[in-house]
């Protein structure tokens, strides 16, 4: 059985979609690590270790969790914030999918049409996609793999992503909290976060950056 490994790039000028290399998405109860199908439990600790080892671990929350369009999503957003605090991780939103004209502000946002700009600007080495529609997530994940050395993780609410280096599927607030527990367990065993110091920015309704006092 051939096995295409989905590792952090830069991989190629235009790398293939992992699905066309024969990679199949995990079934319920499974995850994949770099293209290898594993039980979901195995992926939590691996993921937690990746997050703690990173210098600039970052969560990219998408529109599906940035807007309270149902109660389930509000709970998920809360869990995402808890994860960001637990590691700690930066939060850089993918608020929508329209190309940014004339230029993206790579310090505070990411966009699926040129995701590498945000990765490069912030020197992000590990990221989590959550709440991004699957099509746009796959575009961005593949382009990140093509052009950057960022390790990508997908916390997907649907069937998962072959083009991420690590992917969960059917993500719920409970699963995000299981990941938080895995982070806390590693920390209790003495694994320390390698994250550079940073200040989590906030935006007000006009889009201006409001730094915490």
């Amino acid at each position, binding site marked *: *059985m*051939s*096995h*295409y490994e989905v590792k952090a790039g830069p991989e190629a000028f*235009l790398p*293939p*979609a*992992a*699905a*066309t290399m*024969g*990679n*199949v*998405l*995990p079934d319920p109860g499974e995850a*994949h690590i770099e*293209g*290898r*199908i594993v039980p979901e439990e195995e992926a939590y600790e691996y993921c937690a270790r990746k997050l703690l080892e990173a210098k600039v671990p970052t969560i990219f929350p998408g*529109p*599906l969790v*940035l*807007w*309270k*369009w149902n109660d389930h999503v509000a709970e998920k957003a809360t869990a995402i914030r808890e994860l960001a605090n637990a590691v700690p991780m930066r939060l850089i939103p993918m608020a*929508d*999918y*329209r*190309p*940014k*004209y004339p230029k993206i502000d790579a310090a505070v946002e990411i966009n*699926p*049409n*040129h995701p*590498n700009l945000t990765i490069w600007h912030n020197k992000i080495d590990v990221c989590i996609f959550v709440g991004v*529609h*699957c*099509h*746009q997530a*796959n*575009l961005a994940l*593949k*382009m990140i793999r*093509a*052009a950057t050395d960022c390790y990508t993780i997908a916390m997907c609410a*649907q*069937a*998962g992503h*072959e*083009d991420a280096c690590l992917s969960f599927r059917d993500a719920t607030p409970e699963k995000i909290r299981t990941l938080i527990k895995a982070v806390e367990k590693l920390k209790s065993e003495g694994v320390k976060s390698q994250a550079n110091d940073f200040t989590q920015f906030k935006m007000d309704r006009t889009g201006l950056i409001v730094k915490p006092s």
Partner: protein
Amino acid sequence: MNKSVELKNKRIIASQHVKLGQKNRKGQTYTDVNDIFYKAESTPSFLTGSEVIKEAIRRASVGSMVAYPITPQSEAAALIGELFAEDYLDEYFRGESEFAVMGQCAGAAFGGHRVYTTTAGPGTLRAMENFPMWAGSRLPIQVCVTCRGINSPLSIQPDTMEMHYLLETGMLVWHAETAQDLFDYTLKGFIVAEQPDVHVPIAICCDGFFVTHTKDTVNMTPEDLCLTPYDPYKAPVPCLDMETAPIRMMRDPFVMKSNYINYSTHASWQQEIKAAIERSRKHTVPLLDGLIDEENTDREVLVVTSGTAVSQSREAIRLLEQEGIKVGLVKIKTIRPFPFEEIKRATKNAKHIFVPEFNVGGWLAREIKSTIQNNERVYVGPHVAGGMTMPSEVIALEIKNHLKASGQ
């Protein structure tokens, strides 16, 4: 492949946002797709292919159907109009041309409806620009393509050349051999095409007249059971719902001019559509019981084909058997995704591979030639076109002549 795709013991997951057991306005019960296909008792009926399409759509919880007449799909489109009159569909209307129809289908699908339409021959080609647009926009519309001749001089008779044009549109392309296939593929096609990880349009192709206008016995699922409706909120792209917050944004394929995006975004977009087609294998294999059917593929002479050419070949094989010539058969059910690995495996022992086709181009033979090793084993033909029948005797004779010429 990092994981084998199992044929058995797979539970198909369809949309789950509507409570199972709930009834629709026609009194049909929304039923788990596994129960419909594998547990419910089916009843044999003697129907034309067009009537079979109508009966499949009756059970498919379709929201919108857009129609435009072109032989031989007109009858199916008209029969679905009767379903609308009986209140099985939410919307049914006529377009100004096939191009308009496919654009209207896109609008309905953007809005979150399960959408169905039918076309044929020159109509398929007139609508062509819309098919890659559907795929790029991730719209899981189903179109039944009742194949007919596409070129001048006009022919309304069966010819599968139009399928060749569909191959790289980003659609799933399945090819029904019989009216039974047509019934099954229509219902199962919605399930596969609407999977969140697939979510691309699907063309259910059949050979016009041979399948649409002849009567056959078809085992049909109970009329009072229907598929759960499409759930647009599982789509891999935002549903065009102007009232719901995360969706209150334009779906950008139409305004994504390349001067505003990374060129690799467009390339990546195209790759993602191809990837979606590949992902459909996992859902299609258990639903269709594999992407191919095999009969005696350990033999040195094989016929590999799709559509009604399979039926004709089956009879040709019987005729050859009477003369002591043993021939195996591979029926290809899905053209996209193409069953590369299955065909490689099924043909590994064959010395002669015949690919009968209802078109002069021989596109299926080319697909097979590009798949297998030692492709000089592939004999491109026999071919008929423009509405000719392909008598089993002709297939048998061409196989015999080729084997004789090869010194067999």
